[in-house]
């Protein structure tokens, strides 16, 4: 009987002390609904309150020079062979009615992102100014957000070994600068700003031009808007035919994932 009692009291003490320890540690932010940076209200995590950043891509002005692609890699130290933004180059129409069409692509900083709610570590989240960011000191690299993004705009950064993507150059925006790709865009096709400021360029463009977003049916409400987007270009997203992919052929494939060779598809 005495033995029973001592065991019971041991269990009770154990449970009580574990409970207390848990309580104490949660006060010290050891357990968090979000992540340490957001709990500490770090400005980089909270963003600029009251603002809502969006990008407008005026495709009438894009000349496919890839200046944005390159400057992004420099500004954000994106490893070789990986991209936060790139411009897809296509030809549409049949000779003699043929023209080139360009589609700059980047993270859409969706209002209702598919990537954020699936993150099991809270490493990726939406700042109060609408910018979706990844905390690469928290991310454990499970890849769920990469699978969830309907726009394929996330990848594993080879250097940090975490999920990575466009962050609208938040490090620049927080200092009052434009994202690097906007700054460098030769034709002025990339326009960035606070949509809540009715005098901003983005607010004026959105008010005056019909715009559209990519993959509306996904319900993610993208915050990157396109002017003059041709359906024939987005149709390429879904096509399963293997079309020429010259840049990648020249650069070599990723280690594991690659394009099925044209012959295989045709013979299959």
């Amino acid at each position, binding site marked *: 009987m005495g033995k029973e009692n001592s065991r019971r009291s041991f269990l009770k003490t154990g449970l009580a002390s574990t409970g207390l320890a848990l309580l104490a540690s949660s006060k010290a932010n050891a357990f968090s609904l979000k992540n340490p940076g957001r709990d500490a209200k770090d400005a980089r995590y909270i963003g600029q309150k009251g603002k809502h950043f969006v990008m407008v891509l005026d495709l009438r002005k894009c000349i496919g020079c890839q200046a944005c692609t390159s400057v992004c890699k420099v500004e954000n130290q994106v490893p070789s062979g*990986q991209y936060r933004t790139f411009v897809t180059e296509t030809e549409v129409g049949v000779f003699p009615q043929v023209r080139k069409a360009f589609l700059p692509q980047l993270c859409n900083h969706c209002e209702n992102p598919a990537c954020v709610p699936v993150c099991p570590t809270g490493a990726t989240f939406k700042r109060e100014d609408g910018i979706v960011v990844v905390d690469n000191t928290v991310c454990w690299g499970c890849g769920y957000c990469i699978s969830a993004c309907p726009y394929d705009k996330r990848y594993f950064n080879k250097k940090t070994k975490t999920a990575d993507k466009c962050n609208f150059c938040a490090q620049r925006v927080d200092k009052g600068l434009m994202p690097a790709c906007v700054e460098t865009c030769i034709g002025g096709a990339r326009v960035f700003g606070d949509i809540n400021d009715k005098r901003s360029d983005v607010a004026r463009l959105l008010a005056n031009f019909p715009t559209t977003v990519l993959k509306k049916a996904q319900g993610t409400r993208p915050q990157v808007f396109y002017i003059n987007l041709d359906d024939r270009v987005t149709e390429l997203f879904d096509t399963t035919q293997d079309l020429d*992919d010259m840049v990648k052929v020249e650069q070599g494939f990723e280690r594991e994932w690659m394009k099925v060779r044209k012959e295989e598809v045709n013979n299959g």
Partner: protein
Amino acid sequence: MDSMQTLISSITIAKPWGIDIPNYFWFTGSSAAAFIISSFAHVFGWKKYKPIAGISLLMAFVLLVAAPLNLVDDLRQPGRILNFFMYGWENFATSPMKWGVLLLLAYPILIFFEAQALYRPYFVKKAQESGPLAKIFYLFMTFGRTNLSPEALARDHRLGFILGAIGIPLALAVHGYTGYILGAVHANVMWHTALMPIIFLASAMVSGTGLLLLLIPFFQRFLSERRKVDTDMVATLATLLSWFIVADLVMRFLWLTFSLTFADGEKYALYSYFQLHFMDTLLIDYLLCLLIPLIIGFTRLKNIPAVVYFGGFVTAVGVWIFRWNTVIGGQTIPRTTPGFLHYLPPVFGQDSIVSVLSNWGILIALICLVLLIFPWDEEMIDCYKGAEHAKQ
């Protein structure tokens, strides 16, 4: 006018999940199936399954201990595992991965305690027979309860029943959540179906039964004192396997008819995927790995053990291929760049063929370990004796 689009340049997208993930899904699924089969006896009281209930429970345990190692290997930052437990709890409702890790922790603990309740009397006997060192170990495994009175045994039985009853929904959840992981991804045409958890469960029952059909006769023939395969049990499991295949085929039929025929515009991508893989899917996955074992279990062929082992083997392999086709195949479908992607697992390194083989090595080592520790053979022989006694 016909329009024509040509892609001049874009980038090739790298996808996140490789060979570890289908292997992980196969392990958890087979574990859930083994647990359900053990519960046939422990919870539902079907005496026919009593002799294999213990060993099935142990197999469910080892499969689930080995399974999460695939996930750890898949992580790009495995050193940050603690971040999972500490941060991001606001995503609990929307991230099936969050549920999964908790299930993966709770489920093997539950199985362990159920197995302990089942084998406790045998541990007591072992402790009485063994030398001093082994005695300490076996006494530890009894958790200090050495009482063998009918009341104490009844208590073990009740505990086994309760844990088994809690375990059934847990086993279904531990594999069902993997279906949620894929089904929740609305960006992926192949994965995004509400049927995914049920399809995964149905195919899990197939692979788990297939695996038990290979392991149990092997243990009985070579590792048990009886040195005899229970051919009636083999035939029973073969028929059970056939019923699970029926359930699996029904689920897959529902899934494919809706996603290929009655779906919206996204069906075309899936359509071309299956066009590309038509012959290997039809011949290997459906004909060889499902239809042939189905016929074996429903005909007199089930009385020929060698044929049944073949059926068990091909279903286990077939479900692995199905997991591969779903996880890898789903990722090959283009979302933002034209043309299918292609995946070749690397031979060495993280997420590679060698890492999956190592995982299987760990599974085999764990099987050896539990077979050494748990007195499964004595328990099984007692069950057979009990069954023969009941017949007389």
